[in-house]
Each structure stands twice: as structure tokens, then as C-alpha cells.
């Protein structure tokens, strides 16, 4: 049923709502960019959660802020600032850590060092710029307004590259993440994969930061992956589920942000958090049910 009380009122007819939103080119771009970012963040974030490298991911997303501030200061493209700083920071972390263990003590120290220094740089760039106060807020909390077709193209190109590399090295990366010693014994280049993954993580956070802002990158990097890993322990399904959840919360967030005057980052994070809580509750419930009876399906074989 078409609504007659204004162009931006939410009706419960989702088809009509999407038709209405997609009549604005900037919203079409926002949905496209959101889809690209959600898929990349869901896939790369899944490995990040598995490898317990959330601190590295957090740092790389923080680095998106000085990257954008620097790009604004010198007047170059924002995307270049995001990707340049995030990938450089990933390489810095990879170069500074001493042990090859992901999530290990050496890496977390190196990560903290890089984060502190680059955040300080971001503050300096802002001080030097002296202008446009709403700029930092969009950098920190994201914005879906004014995403251009060119931006979507850049996001998509980087996404394809990231996903292609991830697809090629995915199985070895899983092996190296779950069982680094045996993987190394089998000839898997654990340290090289670890560095490559940090670079992918940098690229993925730079992508996500352009939609959710630097502070809320985790809404797309951690929450869908953590939710998916709660729901299933099968790697393939879990990874696909992570991508699907990321996509769903991003689009729902865009829908909500279009019709209600509150920030996009808030909606995306809230939906993702709600999904996580629901998965947590579902697992707790399944655990209770399993304890109440139902013996294991297979007996001991030996």
C-alpha cells in the first residue's frame, strides 16, 4: 500500500520502501558500498576472530582516522588515505612483532606501539587542518551520504582483490591459524601468511571504515564473525554465515538510517549486537537441552 504522508515515511511494505530508497542515486550507491564492505568485512573478520587478532584489527581501524585526516589535510582522495595508512600500519605491525604467533605477546606490543603513534599523528593532522568541524565526526562514526559511484568502484575493486587473495590462501590460513606448528611442519609458510593476512586486514578495515567510521568498524568486522562462530563450528558454513549476517545488518542499518534521523553506525552496530545476543542465547539454550538428555549419536569406536 503506497503511503501518502511524505516521501520519507517508513511503511511496513518493504518492497515499497526499497523502491522509494532506491529512487535516490545516493542511496543506491550507499547500498552497493554497504554490500561490498559487509562481504569483505564478514570474510576477513571471520579469520580475524578465529586468529584472535581483534586487537590488530582494532588498531588498523583506528589508523583509518589519521589516514583520512591526512588525506583531508593534503587534499588527496580520502580512499587513498584510508587504504594507504591501513596497509602501511599492517606492514609496520608485521615488521615490528618478534614472534610469529598471531595474537601473541610480541604482536600485541607492536600493535599498541603502532596504534599510539598513528592516533597521535591523526590528532596532529586535525590540529594542522583547523577547519570543518563535522569532518572528524564522519571520520569516526561513518556516513552514508554522498558516496559517489567512483568510490563504489574503488571499494569493489579492492574487495575483489582481497577476496581473491583470501580464496587462494584460505585453506592454508585456516591450517596456520588453528594449528601453526603442524602447518609449519607440512611446509605451510606460517609467517608469510600471517603478514599477508595483516595486509588483507588493513585493506578490509579501510573499506569498512569508509561506511561505519573508524570507531565502529568492529560492528562489521567482529560481530558478524563472532555471531557465526557461535552458531556453527563448521568452517565453511561459519564463514558464509558471517558474510550473510554482515550483509543483513548493513542493509537493515541503511534502511533504518534512511527513515529515522539517527546515525547509520548506531543502527548497524545495534542490529549486529542484537544478532550476537540472539546467537548467544540460542547456543546457551542448545547447551541446556543437550545436558538434559539426548546421549551422543555415536558410541566410542574403540
Amino acid at each position, binding site marked *: 500500500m503506497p503511503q501518502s504522508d511524505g516521501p520519507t515515511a517508513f511503511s511496513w511494505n518493504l518492497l515499497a520502501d526499497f523502491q522509494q530508497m532506491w529512487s535516490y542515486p545516493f542511496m543506491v550507491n550507499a547500498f552497493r558500498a554497504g554490500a561490498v564492505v559487509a562481504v569483505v568485512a564478514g570474510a576477513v573478520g571471520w579469520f580475524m576472530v*578465529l586468529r584472535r587478532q581483534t586487537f590488530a584489527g582494532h588498531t588498523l581501524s583506528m589508523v583509518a582516522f589519521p589516514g583520512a585526516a591526512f588525506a583531508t589535510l593534503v587534499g588527496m582522495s580520502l580512499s587513498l588515505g584510508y587504504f594507504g595508512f591501513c596497509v602501511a600500519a599492517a606492514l609496520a605491525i608485521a615488521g615490528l612483532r618478534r614472534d610469529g604467533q598471531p595474537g601473541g605477546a610480541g604482536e600485541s606490543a607492536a600493535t599498541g606501539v603502532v596504534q599510539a603513534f598513528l592516533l597521535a599523528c591523526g590528532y596532529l593532522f586535525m590540529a594542522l587542518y583547523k577547519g570543518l568541524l563535522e569532518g572528524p565526526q564522519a571520520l569516526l562514526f561513518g556516513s552514508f551520504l554522498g558516496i559517489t559511484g567512483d568510490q563504489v568502484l574503488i571499494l569493489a575493486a579492492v574487495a575483489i582483490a582481497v577476496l581473491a587473495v583470501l580464496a587462494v590462501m584460505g*585453506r*592454508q590460513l585456516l*591450517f596456520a591459524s588453528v594449528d601453526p606448528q*603442524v602447518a609449519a611442519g607440512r611446509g605451510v609458510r606460517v609467517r608469510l601468511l600471517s603478514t599477508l593476512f595483516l595486509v588483507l586486514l588493513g585493506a578490509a578495515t579501510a573499506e569498512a571504515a569508509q561506511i561505519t567510521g573508524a570507531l565502529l568498524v568492529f560492528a562489521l568486522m567482529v560481530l558478524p564473525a563472532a555471531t557465526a562462530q557461535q552458531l556453527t*563450528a563448521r568452517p565453511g558454513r561459519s564463514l558464509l554465515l558471517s558474510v550473510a549476517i554482515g550483509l543483513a545488518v548493513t542493509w537493515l542499518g541503511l534502511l533504518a538510517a534512511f527513515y529515522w534521523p539517527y546515525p547509520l553506525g548506531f543502527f548497524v552496530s545495534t542490529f549486529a549486537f542484537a544478532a550476537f545476543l540472539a546467537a548467544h542465547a540460542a547456543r546457551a539454550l542448545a547447551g541446556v537441552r543437550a545436558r538434559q538428555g539426548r546421549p551422543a549419536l555415536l558410541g566410542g569406536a574403540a
Partner: protein
Amino acid sequence: MNPITGTPAAVTATRPETAPPAPTRAETPQPVLELRGAAARVGGRTLWSGVDLTVRAGEFVAVLGPNGVGKSTMVKVLLGVLPAAAGEVRVLGGQPGQSAGARIGYLPQRRSFDPSLRIRGLDVVRLGLDGDRWGVPLPFGAARRRDRERVAEAVDLVGAGAYAHRPIGQCSGGEQQRLLIAQALVRRPEVLLLDEPLDSLDLPNQSAVAALIGRICHQQGVAVVMVAHDVNPILHHLDRVVYLAEGGAVAGTPAEVITSETLTRLYRSPVEVLRTADGRLVVVGQPEAPSTHGGHHAAV
């Protein structure tokens, strides 16, 4: 075709200790592992030397010695990660490290999985099969079916069918160790190198896992080299032991090697081997190696 299901365990149990193993694999005339006067040196210090050892298919060999003497280093030499400082080492008829991968199964020193790791035991075993390949596995087709069957077979072999579908972080230490043995076995290796697989297991699990390894060794014809801290859980499964000492080594059957005379000669200080009423061996006076590090280098 004979219906052998269920019978091999009984056959092994009744077979006397000295009977030759009956490997299912075709008997190779040449030994699987061969060390002649082998020595290892780490950081300029000679850990052990003069190791003469021949291991054939279906033989179970333990590497023993005090902490820090370089027992894990022996495994690294056999893997080809560390070159032997002297002597000759041949693995499967070639240089160590040449035929790595499918023909050698390796279980590193005790590692436990984070309780929150949400990956099934089955997937960990599967990674032992194809985790070193590039690309994404196809979710269908004959190759996938074959892989699944192979994984299920390995899981059955170690008796882990009941918990292989659970996230591995939620399995007990003994269950994790069985799954890791399945992972090491999934490519049907000819040699199994185990680094203290019984470490940090409770006593019932130690003897159960030891019996499992002994069974796999003798039934499947896999040559097993196990680094062990305590010989007792594996004593009656063993065909041969190697005792390492600083600057020396002695190899032979347990009865030859684990005696007061042999060990006193090896360590050049009084060592007494006592046999308890239930057949356990207690080695008294075995010196600890002088260095506090060594043997426990993190393998990265």
C-alpha cells in the same frame, strides 16, 4: 577376503612381545629410518652424538633421556628441520626432509586448543589431509567424498567418533590428543614422529593413548618414534629404546638398555634401575642436563 573387523585387537593382545609385527603394508627390505653415528649440535653445543639406530616398518621406538638433552631435537633432525651435525641420517631411503608431507606424520610437543575455538575436531583432522593446499576445496564431487571417507577412517582408527563433531576446544586433553593423532595419521604415513604425546595426560589416558599408538604401530605397520619423559606407560609396547646423554647415546631393546650397568656407563655417574613389583621401572640418579634451555625451543 577375510572378515577381520574386530579381530586384530584380540590378535595383538595375545601375541607374545617378541613375535615379529605383521604389517598390512608390504614389507620393505630397507629400513624406514637409519641413523649411523648421528650427532646434533644446537648453538655450538653438542647435544648428543654417536646414535646408531635402525627402525623398520611396524616398530615402536622411544627416545628417552633427561630434560634438555635434545630429545625433541632428534625429531627435528628426522624431520629435516635441523641438519645432523655428524654421521648419516636416512629417512625413507632419502635425506631427511626430502620426502616430508604425506609419508611422515608429525605430532609436535603438547599443544592444547583454546576452549573458545569453534572448529570441530573433524576439521582439525581434515586440515592434516589437505590443509597445505592452496585454493578453496570444492563442496562436492568424488574427491570430496574420498577425503571425507579418509578423515572418517582416521577418526575411527583412534576411536574419536563420539566427539569428533564437537568443537575441539571443548574436548578433554585425552580426546584432543587422539584427534591430533588422527590428524597425524590421516595421510597414511609410513613414519609417525611423536613428541611427548602423553605429557599432561592423566594416568588412565596415558596408558590408553599409549596402547592406541602401539596398536596403530603394529597393526598398520607404521614405524613410530616417540619422545617420552617416562618410559613406563609405553614400556610393554616398545620394540626399541634410544637413551640420549650429553655427548653420547645408546640404543637397543628396553631389556638391554634400561639397566643399571648400561645407563651408568652412558651417564658416567651411578644410575640405578629398579623394577617395582608391578613391572614398572624407576631410574634413580639420572643426571639432568647442565643447560636450562635446549630441547624446548619453540618450533615456529
